[in-house]
């Protein structure tokens, strides 16, 4: 409990504290009532019987359905994030290019693909691989998922890179140019490494988005966690327990990734702080704040 006053509430006095206790009791009752409603709605249809949950004690459930599904999800996410980082850096560099044509083309590309839903890109990629290139077999859905996720997330990462470079102190580029580097070399050797380090937390949280979006592969028959869970559920007749278990797996992994992102962010902040660069960090932080909506958008 924070004793420090927030912008909304002053430090509570004895009267306010009593009022908080009343609100706390009332709020707890409302929350418990809502939870009871949800649980009883499930229990009324027999969702908490042993028969519905015992499959999860059977190792075969895990070895033949959930773990292969998780593996497929992780494989898709891994390839997508690697390719998206590569694509994102290239596109980001393109958007910062000195050449108007490159800058415009990359700008239109990024804005366009950021506006198109990931699912549509997956569907499109899937059918292009199927009809256009003639890919078939098990690799086809994976290609569709990875292509869709890569396109979208490269654009998000390109924006992260661009705003990262934009928020660097101007002296960095000026110093690089002053020692005789070309604008491209300055970008490549001085600005990008700093921008990427600074954006590392956002890139890790983007991995959460990639993991979540890989579940869209369901529609193009990619055997990821949700689909393999559904196969399991149709055999065992326990769709709700299965979804609860799958949600728990996703929440656990993504929560750990979010924690990692926060840890990285704190570490980087600590490094930037320091008596001499104090002024720099005050220049950086407002632009970081204006950038958070962008990272927040990536999160959805």
């Amino acid at each position, binding site marked *: 409990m924070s004793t420090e006053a927030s912008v909304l509430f002053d430090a509570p006095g004895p009267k306010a504290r009593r009022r908080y206790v009343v609100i706390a009791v009332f709020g707890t009752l409302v929350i418990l009532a809502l939870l009871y409603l949800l649980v009883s709605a499930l229990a009324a249809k027999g969702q908490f019987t042993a028969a519905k949950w015992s499959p999860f004690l059977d190792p075969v459930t895990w070895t033949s359905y959930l773990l292969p599904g998780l593996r497929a999800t992780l494989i898709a996410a891994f390839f997508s994030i690697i390719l998206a980082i590569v694509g994102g850096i290239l596109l980001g560099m393109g958007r910062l290019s000195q050449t108007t044509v490159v800058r415009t083309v990359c700008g239109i590309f990024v804005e*366009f693909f950021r506006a198109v839903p990931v699912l549509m890109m997956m569907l499109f990629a899937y059918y292009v691989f199927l009809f256009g290139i003639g890919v078939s077999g098990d690799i086809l859905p994976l290609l569709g998922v990875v292509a869709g996720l890569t396109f979208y997330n490269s654009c998000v990462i390109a924006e992260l890179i661009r705003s990262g470079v934009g928020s660097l102190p101007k002296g960095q580029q000026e110093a690089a140019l002053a020692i005789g580097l070309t604008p491209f070399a300055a970008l490549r050797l001085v600005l990008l490494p700093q921008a990427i380090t600074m954006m590392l937390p956002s890139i890790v949280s983007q991995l959460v988005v990639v993991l979540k979006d890989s579940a869209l592969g369901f529609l193009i028959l990619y055997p990821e966690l949700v689909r393999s869970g559904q196969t399991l559920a149709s055999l065992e007749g326990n769709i709700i327990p299965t979804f609860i278990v799958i949600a728990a797996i996703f929440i656990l992994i993504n929560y750990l990734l979010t924690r990692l992102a926060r840890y990285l962010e704190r570490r980087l902040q600590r490094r930037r702080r320091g008596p001499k660069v104090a002024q720099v960090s005050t220049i950086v932080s407002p632009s970081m704040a204006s950038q958070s909506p962008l990272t927040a*958008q990536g*999160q959805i």
Partner: protein
Amino acid sequence: MLDGLSQLLTEYNVLAAFWMTIKLTLAAAVGALVIGTIVAIMRVSPVAVLRAAGTTYVTLVRNTPLTLIVFFCAFGFYITLQYRIGAQNSPIDVQNFRWGVLALAVYHAAFVAEALRSGINTVPKGQAEAARAIGLDFGATLYNVVLPQAFRGAIAPLGNVLIALTKNTTVLATIGVAEASYLMKGMIEFRPDLIYAIFVIMATGFVILTLPVGIGFTALSRRLAVKR
């Protein structure tokens, strides 16, 4: 290509599909705003229990794939458990629509709550302290000083949530709601020869839907930005 485009537009009711996308977006946006506001109030409240409950909601929902939440509602509550929203005898597509909207609202409420909270966080503590110093009571401080600034700070992130929500309505294709990506899948399966034209049409539709929202919200947040 042009021939293909006109052929597709006459053969398929693209406008109806995008109208469904718009309806889903608006309905879910209202729901997400209602739930999200409640969660945001809980998250910034001085009562620890409510704060913890709000944080739990955001953490759980934000880390679950939307697809899973949609399935939970449509396949779980509706198909398997036979729970219906509203009239008991309404047809399947109406029920799918309602459960889909509920799933979208529940999911995006977490992001709305975060947007509102980040808006409140943009208000410096000195604003409230100054308001209290000139003798405003709690309600007046909130109403006249803090909330107007907080809403202005929340406009840009709220706009981003609305754009993401528009795009995320496509996830409902997985439960057969006849929105844009559902139509796209059907179109490609029947006319694989026109796949590029189909993608151009559908993608452009989303650019048309989201671009003005983005530009509008950015302009609004700039115009209303609190000068500090």
